[in-house]
């Protein structure tokens, strides 16, 4: 290879690399600035909105599952757990889900109601996963017209 030609290639590579690293530096700087002053990249900031603190970026932690239950939320550990935690718990407690029972149609109805009145977003492809999860693990049981008294804790009644 000719010396001049080689010099040219080195020069060109140098320019390209400089531009590349320069750009990286700008992006990194921007991200750091964004972390310190979040309004920098957010065009509309509503200061009245109160954000829930999040200390653990992992949604489903390695040690969160015990006896088939996701302990922090009480949800059954099964396919769809992560989508349910991510989409259901930003607005309300997991307890509002786990204490309810409904058919597939019922759960879809609840999702539609939340979308119409409670600002729930379009769940996209996650909707099928979420509905499958809920209809499978939180399905209704036939309780009849009146259930038996259950979970009675017997005790001696002394004082009268």
């Amino acid at each position, binding site marked *: 290879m000719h010396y001049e030609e080689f010099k040219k290639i080195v020069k060109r590579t140098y320019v390209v690399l400089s531009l590349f690293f320069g750009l990286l530096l700008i992006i990194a700087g921007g*991200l750091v600035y*964004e*972390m*310190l*002053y*979040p309004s920098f990249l957010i065009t509309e900031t*509503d*200061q009245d*909105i*109160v*954000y*829930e*603190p*999040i*200390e*653990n*970026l992992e*949604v489903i932690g390695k040690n969160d599952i015990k006896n088939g239950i996701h302990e*922090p*939320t009480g949800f059954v550990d099964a396919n769809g757990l*992560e*989508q349910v*935690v*991510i*989409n259901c*718990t*930003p*607005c*309300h*407690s*997991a*307890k*509002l889900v786990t*204490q*309810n029972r*409904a*058919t597939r149609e*019922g759960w879809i109805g*609840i999702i539609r109601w939340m979308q119409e*009145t*409670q*600002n*729930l*977003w*379009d*769940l996209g492809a*996650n909707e099928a996963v979420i509905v499958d999860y809920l209809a499978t693990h939180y399905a*209704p049981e036939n*309780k*009849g017209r*009146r*259930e038996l*008294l259950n979970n*009675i*804790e*017997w*005790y*001696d*009644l002394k004082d*009268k």
Partner: protein
Amino acid sequence: MDRRKFIKEAGLATAASVVGLDIVFSSTLPENYIPLVKEPGNPYKLFGIDPEMTVLNNKPWNIEAKAHLLDDKITPNKYMFVRNNGLIPQSIDVSNWELVIDGESVVKPRTYSLQELKTKFKQYSYQLTLECGGNGRSEFNPPAKGNQWTVGAVSCAKWTGVRLRDILEDVGVKEDAVYIGYHGADVHLSKDPNKEAISRGVPMYKALQNETLLAFKMNDKDIPLAHGYPLRLIAGGWPASASGKWLNRISIRNKIHDGAKMKAPSYSVPCHAVAPGEKVKESDMCIIESMPVKSLITYPKTGAMIEAGSKLEIRGHAWAGELEVAKMEYSIDFGATWKTCALDRPTNRLAWQHFRASVEFPQKGYYEVWARATDEKGVCQPMLVPGWNPKGYLNNACHRIAVKIK
């Protein structure tokens, strides 16, 4: 809000997106919505409630009592159910708290300071029964969505305040007035500032009753934050959702109030009876007004074991919405025979009434004591769960406790 907190939290949210928090799942998740994976605080400390109270939901806070916790004649704060549709206001500025009276049917709209309300109008105290419209929902079959209240979403505290009627007379009400709607300072669950968590109300005839108060005291103290500090509308005998908390505005309407949770299926039942699980059109749903006749055995706690030959003293409360309870009975043979309980008259209209009886058992074994109240119109509590409705309201089936005779 605190700017530092804002930066820190928003910063973490941003960090989450930077490190790529499961982008696959969060692609449809709007910015700034963070999954709640941590308990939002200890309710027993936050609200000063008893550790035996049951937390059904912690966002929004919904907590109920158990039957035996409601034994007091006047319910203390520690045993009072907490029902929220939205988020409890984070800061209350009492010195600048104002109540706005507006609406299509107000003659002169005006604003009162809390101090003006307290000094300008005569104050009244009443014991008023507040029961969640969905109390007993957990028994409906097929299940109804919402907080699965069992029996403990009812209370009867002493409320002190001024009559709404006196305020309405002060501002003047036009002839076309139909309804009043309340507005409060609670925050919608989605934190959307343009949405109200709940804004219900009552028709004019209820608004003008002596016992309908703008209360600033509960049991002779400032109303606890969870129950509406510093000002709450109290409409006893109606679904407690009609008693708006953190009250800052009342609109006098020339139509049925159309605020949040006024529309069916919220706090509405089918106008005509339906089969369990049947689909009901919104236009066929009617807004709940007075709550039905109901009672609760508050002593002893279910599960009592006593010696053969000894009597069991039972007691509790009975209430009937707008009406008075006329008769109270109990049965130890699943309704085959009923015996009468001693029943007190209410301290004032819309207060729950106390009953007691001395129960004898013929032989040893397993028994259930069932309680049944009858209102002044002769309507009594059903033994089975009454008419199914899509949202599971108005379950006034007889309360029962289990007893063993040794």
